[in-house]
Every structure is written in structure tokens, then in C-alpha cells.
């Protein structure tokens, strides 16, 4: 293990990593633009120059690998490399490079969406010179559409080519390229071959300045107004790690969050723009009960009383009388409570089913990124907590025998086919727990107001068996109750239990007690990076390196 010194810090590093990487690992700041840990190294921005003892000129730290020196040639008797990042000459060099970068960069931070999270802005402030010596007119070009969701502002582009390398190395689609050469070069697309792949949105994330803009977010808000919540994506069973940016409980955008066990540095566009589906859905604002062909609001107490009445009627019969429809869109905690309700309270009088899983085509990128064909986030959790799931519930359940059907809502874009529609229609009393007026909710007799996917809190198990924390990115609206709480009230009402969980953590602990695979997988332990289930040692080998930017 080579021992190096960066400024005053002695660091032991892996052989063969670069100086920049060693510095990033140690949280020593070396500014850079063109480097990205997932992409190949080009060393063109010249921002990460550092002084290395024994080298006549400044070196780009992104392309300087650390090797081991023979004992007699070690610097100061023990170091394999001595790096200085804060000397006068290095600082002057940063100032110079920034001056060049800013020559033609417009000073339109007030208009730019990147302002506040822009590394050109930050480093200019930190290392740049206060005044421009450039007297000529700046280069001005018109904005262009690169794809249906991506706009480029050529004026702001600093030609780091991260986006071009992304399309070549990660998405493998090659749409972007550099047109022409020298100072007139620009990022471009070939005629009608626009940037419209499944990962296109990531180029906006990796652009270190505000050159690549999302049509979805452009001119919508300012970065400092937004609150970032670390959560996971619920649009497929990969469970990509994301950052959800919101203000006043309204979500403005999603960004990828690094997790080398799951998604690396990127997310797909399905997840990135998926939150609009929940926004656009027709919302339910209060528990509702069917009356005169429509719905009318009802209080929670009223709703629970209604359930109790229907239930006490149903318990008198002999045959199976309770049908539960579980859903892979819910958290482990809700599904655990649901399983308990069905299996422990209704016991053999109940039957648990599910709507058919939503499946689409599976997408694999050569870079290792994947989008699962299973487009529900928690199929693993559903199977774990409802082990006696009945696959052919449509055949098993005969109309007229069921007194009460309790369905958890499914994905917002769930459509019901005829068979299922007639199944639900035939129910004498259908309780649906939902947040939106889905086709299923429209058939309900009683709607219990649960949280939307962005309001839910709990754990999810992805298709690799990794347990991850679904962190609520917006808070619950007035009358909404957490899913587990609704089921708990259900249990207390009909099962005469006296469960008094006050938070999802307590449910999580109880869940760990009863399911050994999940023991010790508390929010505190799984953190923001998740942990595999107990019986799985590794879900996916961790590779790749962290990036500050």
C-alpha cells in the first residue's frame, strides 16, 4: 500500500488509484469539471492541476496514478508521492483556468437553473478572480433541443464532454457528439437522431454547469428553495437511490443518488419523470363512503365503524368470507401488518390475493445499469410477508361468498381488465385503501385515505434482496394516515387488539422480531444505502468510486 502525503495529510492508498481519487476519498478538495468517476478520463478541463514533488510541471491529478517507489527513492524517506494542492502556483493556475472558462460563459446566474449547485459558480467564487479582463463581445448562440427532455444552452457549456462520454460509455447510444473544433465547437446531435434514450436525463445531472437543462424543470424554481430528501425510486424493482427535491410539499425534480450496490450514479428517465404521474392523478382528500351512486366524505371514526359493522356481519357465516388484495407497491411494514391482519386475525376465513404483477420489458445497458421488467418496487417484500398468497384468486373465490374485500391500492397507472373489474364489482363490500381515484377506487364502497408513494415511509426490498429505506419526500396531508396505521386501526377495530404503534419504526422492530430475515434491519442500521436481507450475503458487488460532485 503506497503511502502518500497530500498537503499535510498522510494517506495510505490503494495502488493504482489516481491522486484526485485519493483526495476525494479523504475529502480534500481539488476542483475538477471533466472528471467523473463513472466515465473515462480525458483530462481536458485542466482544473485539477496539482504540484507533485519531483515533477517539473503541474500534473492533472485525475490522470496521475499512484504507484509504489523502491525504498531508496521514497520521498522524505517514506512517501511514495508528495502532493500539494494549495500552493501559490496551483492557486494561480486555478485562477487562470477559471478565467479562460469564464471568457465566453455568460454571467446569467440569475437566469440559470444550475445557480446554487454550479461548480463553475462555486469555484469561481473560491478560486477565481473578481473581474474579467475580457473586453470583447462574448460568444452567443441560441439554445437548442437535444432531445424531447433536454435543452442545451451553448453559451454556458464549458466543453467538459461529460455528456458525450456518458452517451458513449454508459447509455451506449452515442447520440451526442462534439461538432467542429476549437472555440466554435459545441455539443450537438445528428439531424433527427435526438437524445431520447432511457438514461437521457442523467446528462442533466452530470453537467457541471447549467448548459444541459431539463425541459421539465427549466425556469421552475431555485435550487436553494428546494429541500432534498434521500429516498428510493418506486418505479421498478431495482429501487434506484434518488434525491427528491421539493418545496412546500410539491416535488420539483428527482436526481440520481450514488449507491454502488444498486444503481451506481444514475437513474432512468422512467423514474426521473415518474413523479408527475402521482401529481396528475385525481386525488382523494378524505375517507369516502359510497352514497347515491357517488362518494361522500366520512370521518375516520365513521369509516372504521362502517368496517366493523360490515365485518361483524361477515364473521357470522361459515365459508371463507374475507378477501385481502395486497400490493407490491407498499412498504414492507404495511405488507407485514396486512399479512398479520389476514393471517392472524381472520385466519382461515381469509384469503390473500393480488392483482397481476405489472411487467414490462427488461432493459440492460452494457455499462451494467438495468431497468427491471418487474415494474413494481416491492415484489420480494410482498412474497415475504404474505407467504400464503393465492395466485388464482379469481378462480378460488366464488361470488356471493365474500362479505368483505379489503384492497390496498396498486400503481397509479393500474388498469383493471374485465375479469378483475367484474370480480371487484361483485363484492358486497369493497374497502380500498388509496390516495387517488384509480379505476379500482371507483368501484369501492369505502375509501380509506392512505398516503401517496411520495408520502410513504418504510422499507422496501428490491429484486436483489436489498432492503432500502423509502423516505417520505413530502409530508402527509391533513386527513391522510400512514398505511400501517390504517391497517393497525383495522386490526384494533375488528380484531379487538390493542396495538398502539406510534411510529413506523415500532412496526419495523416488530417485523424484525417475527421475520428473521429482517431482524436488525432498522432504519438506523440500513441508513441511506440499504442493507441486504439476512440470508443474502451480498446483493451485488460494490464497484465504482464516490464522487463529491
Amino acid at each position, binding site marked *: 500500500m503506497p503511502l502518500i502525503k497530500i498537503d499535510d495529510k498522510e494517506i495510505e492508498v490503494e495502488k493504482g488509484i489516481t491522486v484526485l481519487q485519493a483526495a476525494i476519498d479523504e475529502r480534500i478538495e481539488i476542483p475538477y469539471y471533466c472528471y467523473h468517476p463513472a466515465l473515462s*478520463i*480525458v*483530462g*481536458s*478541463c*485542466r*482544473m485539477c*492541476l496539482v504540484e507533485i514533488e519531483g515533477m*517539473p*510541471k*503541474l500534473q*492533472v491529478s485525475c*490522470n496521475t496514478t499512484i504507484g509504489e517507489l523502491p525504498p531508496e527513492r521514497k520521498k522524505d524517506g517514506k512517501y511514495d508521492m508528495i502532493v500539494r494542492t494549495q500552493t501559490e502556483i496551483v492557486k494561480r*493556475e486555478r485562477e*487562470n*483556468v477559471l*478565467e*479562460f*472558462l469564464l*471568457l*465566453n460563459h455568460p454571467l446569467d446566474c440569475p437566469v440559470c437553473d444550475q445557480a446554487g449547485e454550479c461548480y463553475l459558480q462555486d469555484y469561481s467564487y473560491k478560486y477565481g478572480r473578481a473581474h474579467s*479582463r*475580457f*473586453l*470583447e463581445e462574448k460568444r452567443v448562440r441560441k439554445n437548442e433541443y437535444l432531445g424531447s427532455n433536454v435543452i442545451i444552452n451553448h453559451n454556458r457549456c*464549458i*466543453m467538459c464532454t461529460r455528456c458525450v462520454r456518458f452517451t458513449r460509455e454508459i447509455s451506449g447510444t452515442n447520440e451526442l457528439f*462534439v461538432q*467542429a*473544433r*476549437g*472555440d*466554435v*465547437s459545441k455539443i450537438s446531435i445528428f439531424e433527427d437522431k435526438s437524445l431520447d434514450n432511457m438514461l437521457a436525463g442523467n446528462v442533466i445531472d452530470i453537467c457541471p454547469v447549467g448548459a444541459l437543462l431539463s425541459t421539465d424543470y427549466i425556469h421552475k424554481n431555485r435550487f436553494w428553495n428546494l429541500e432534498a430528501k434521500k429516498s428510493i425510486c418506486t418505479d421498478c424493482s431495482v429501487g434506484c437511490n434518488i434525491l427528491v427535491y421539493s418545496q412546500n410539499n410539491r416535488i420539483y425534480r428527482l436526481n440520481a443518488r450514488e449507491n454502488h450496490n444498486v444503481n451506481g450514479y444514475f437513474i432512468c428517465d422512467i423514474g426521473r419523470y415518474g413523479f408527475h404521474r402521482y401529481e396528475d392523478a385525481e386525488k382523494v382528500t378524505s375517507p369516502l363512503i359510497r352514497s347515491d351512486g357517488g362518494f361522500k366524505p366520512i370521518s375516520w371514526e365513521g369509516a372504521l365503524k362502517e368496517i366493523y359493522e360490515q365485518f361483524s356481519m361477515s364473521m357470522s357465516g361459515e365459508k371463507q368470507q374475507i378477501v385481502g388484495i395486497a400490493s407490491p407497491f407498499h412498504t414492507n411494514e404495511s405488507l407485514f401488518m396486512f399479512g398479520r391482519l389476514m393471517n392472524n386475525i381472520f385466519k382461515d376465513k381469509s384469503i390473500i390475493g393480488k392483482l397481476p404483477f405489472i411487467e414490462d420489458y427488461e432493459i440492460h445497458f452494457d455499462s451494467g445499469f438495468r431497468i427491471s421488467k418487474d415494474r413494481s418496487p416491492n415484489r420480494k417484500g410482498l412474497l415475504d410477508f404474505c407467504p400464503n398468497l393465492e395466485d388464482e384468486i379469481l378462480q378460488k373465490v366464488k361470488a356471493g361468498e365474500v362479505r368483505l374485500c379489503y384492497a390496498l391500492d396498486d400503481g397509479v397507472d393500474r388498469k383493471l381488465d374485465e375479469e378483475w373489474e367484474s370480480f371487484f364489482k361483485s363484492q358486497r363490500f369493497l374497502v380500498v385503501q388509496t390516495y387517488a381515484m384509480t379505476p379500482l377506487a371507483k368501484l369501492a364502497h369505502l375509501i380509506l385515505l392512505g398516503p401517496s408513494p411520495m408520502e410513504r415511509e418504510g422499507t422496501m426490498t428490491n429484486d436483489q434482496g436489498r432492503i432500502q429505506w423509502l423516505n417520505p419526500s413530502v409530508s402527509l396531508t391533513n386527513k391522510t394516515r400512514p398505511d400501517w396505521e390504517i391497517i393497525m386501526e383495522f386490526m384494533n377495530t375488528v380484531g379487538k387488539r390493542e396495538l398502539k404503534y406510534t411510529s413506523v419504526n415500532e412496526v419495523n422492530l416488530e417485523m424484525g422480531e417475527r421475520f428473521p430475515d429482517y431482524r436488525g434491519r432498522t432504519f438506523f442500521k440500513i441508513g441511506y444505502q440499504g442493507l441486504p436481507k439476512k440470508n443474502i450475503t451480498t446483493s451485488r458487488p460494490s464497484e465504482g468510486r464516490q464522487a463529491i460532485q
Partner: protein
Amino acid sequence: MASFEPILTRHIHREDSHTLSGYKNVGGYKALEKMFKTMAPDEVIEEVNASNLRGRGGAGFPTGVKWGFIPKDSHKPTYLICNADESEPGTFKDRLLLNKTPHMMLEGMIISSYAIDCHLAFIYIRGEFYQEHKILEKAVEEAYATNLLGNDILGSGFDLEVVIHRGAGAYICGEEMGLIESLEGKRGWPRIKPPFPAIEGYLRCPTIVSNVETLACLPHILNRGADWFKSIGSEKGSGPKLYCISGRVNNPGVYEEPLGILLTDLIFKRGGGLIDGRELKAVFPGGSSSAILRADEIDGLRMDFDSLSAAKTMLGSAGIIVMDETVDMVSVCLNIARFYAHESCGQCTPCREGTTWLVKILNRIYQGNGSLNDIDMIFEITDNIGGLIDFSKGSFGKTICPFGEAVAWPIRSFVEKFKDEFIAYVAKGVEVS
């Protein structure tokens, strides 16, 4: 110095010098036969090392040492690329060789390939050299026809294919990494080093890139021995060298002289002095990328790698551009700056943005709108693109390839050495306004 007889250009005046028979008549391909019969590849490398042959493309790196960098235990194929992408303003020596004795270079290529165990060699020729391309194609065809190329060359068991690859108009493709990228069919953006091409070059395989003139020297070294080669010129750089003289001289052209000849001899004797007997004002000793020299600086200056770096300039491609007293230095400087701005590949920040900025400032001065401040700024900008030029400590290059230095050196030297002219332009502007 003993009287010098041209070596590379000795027979170029013959009508048939570019044909195979013409070349063979004057002793061509003898070195090849000798090498196949008597020498092992390692011995060839040793011989070249002993001859102290330094690359003629501009950087002056010892050729034998470069060959030695190729990893011995590599399973990858080795490639040789002949760099015939001669684009340096004021340089036209390779063009002459390609035109007149393409076989000499081919022979050098075969020798070099044999030494580094390469079986596929490329000639990257400048896109603008259309006629030369035709001549070269013919020469390669002839060589294939007479088993000088192809399988089992001259019964030695050594195979070599040669492919001529035409460039398409980019100065930067003369830089070895840019050239390799261009050969791979990509834009000619120089790749970052390390790894160096001798380790990972074309298709990530070991690759040697050599200048036409360097390769043309090889047959002579093998023919007459390293000691003979070493005896020509000075100690620090030996061998014959092609000097290109252009600009305001009576007899512009390519002249072959040993390394270390006096610059004044070249200009006044070979070049025939200045047009109309005018006074010499300034001269580029090594193409437009070298720092310019004032007339009073060239007395006793010898044309070799080390003497010129001592004079804070470089031999480069030995393209001597002569300027007389009537030449306006500001406009020349602008011309040079514009050339580099046009040819900058646009990869590294300082070069992409800095070259255009220089043009804008110089243009402003030229139009009479400059200020004294601008002159100081040119110093700073050139330093920022190409590094602080301190020859005692080496240059502090700041870009991926040496293009940054190639911009900075001449422009800086212009402003440094002809500051009064720049100031005059500024003053003129002030008067007008």
C-alpha cells in the same frame, strides 16, 4: 567542419529518383538486404542508439530510446506510424522527401518495423498532399510487386504490410496522440499521457510514431554505420538535417546540411540573402511554433537542438521563416495567432479559449484600439496557455499536448522582442482617437 555532402537529398535531382528503379540505381534497399542478412532486431536498435539519431519531427527525442520503451512481454501487436502529416507553417521538407524519394522512407519504415517487430505500418499523410499521396501509392505498389513489402520480405521471413492513410486537414493530427486518434477514425483530439504511445497507442497497442525524415535517415545509418552518422554535425545532435527556408529570401527551398550549421550561413549562403538586399529583421528558426529571433540574436547561432534551446527557442521542424525590415511584426503576430486559433482542437480549456482571446486582443491592437495594458495581458495569457517559459527549469506545459506551448512561445517572443512596434500601434490608436 569537413565539407558536407548531402545524404538524404543527394539524388533528388535525378528524373527517376521517385521510382523504385531510380532508387535502386543509387544504392537503394542495400541497407535492407544487409540488415536481413547480418542483423538481429536488437542489433538494429543498438546501432540506431549508437548513432544518436534524434527525431526530426520537432521534439528531438532519441529514436533508439523510443524503440526501447516498447514492452517486451506484450502479447499485443506493435504498430509503426510514419508521421507525414507535415503542417507546421514554414516546413516542407517531408513533402520533398515524399515527392522525390519515397522509397528511402519506405526502406526506413521496413528497418524500423523489423527492429520493433511490427507487421503493420501506416503512413499518415496530410490530406492536402494529393500529388504526394499518388506518388507514395505508386511507390508502395512497386514495393509490393518486388517483394519489398508483403509476406516474407526478400526471403527473410519477415512480413510487413504498409497502409497509406490520408488525413483531412487538421494541424493537430501531426501530434502523435492526435494522429493516433485520427487514424482510429475519431476526431484528432490528443489523448492524455500517460500511457505513452509506445505502451498504449493505436488501438491501445504499442505504437511508434516517427517522422518521415527520421525514417529516411535509417537506411544510411545501417549502410555506413553509427560512427559515420555520429561524426556528422555536433556532438549533441548528429546527422544530416533538412532545413526549409522560406519568407523574404532570394532562394527559398529545402537545403540539407549537418545539424549544428550556422543559422546565418543558411540564410545568407544557401538562402541567397534577402530579397532586394534588404536588412534582416527577424527569423523563425524552427517553424512558427518556435520563438522568433531578432536579427541581432542570430550571430553565431548553431542549428541544433541544444544551442537553440539555449537561445530560448527550438529547432522544431527546422522551418526557417525569414522576415525583412519591411515586415510588420504586429500583423505577422496576428497571422500566427489566427493560425493557432483556427487549428486549436478545442479540447483543453486554456488552448480553446486562450487562442481566440489572443487573436481578439491582437486584432484590437492591429486596428489601433489597443492599450498598453493589452501588451502586458498578452504576456500573461501566453503564460497561462503554454506555461511560464523558464528554460532553466523546463517549460510548464499546461495542456494535454504541446500545442499550448506552440502557441505561447512565438506570440510571447513577438511581443517581448518587438515591443516597440506594438507600442507604436497602440500609440497610433491613441492619436487617432
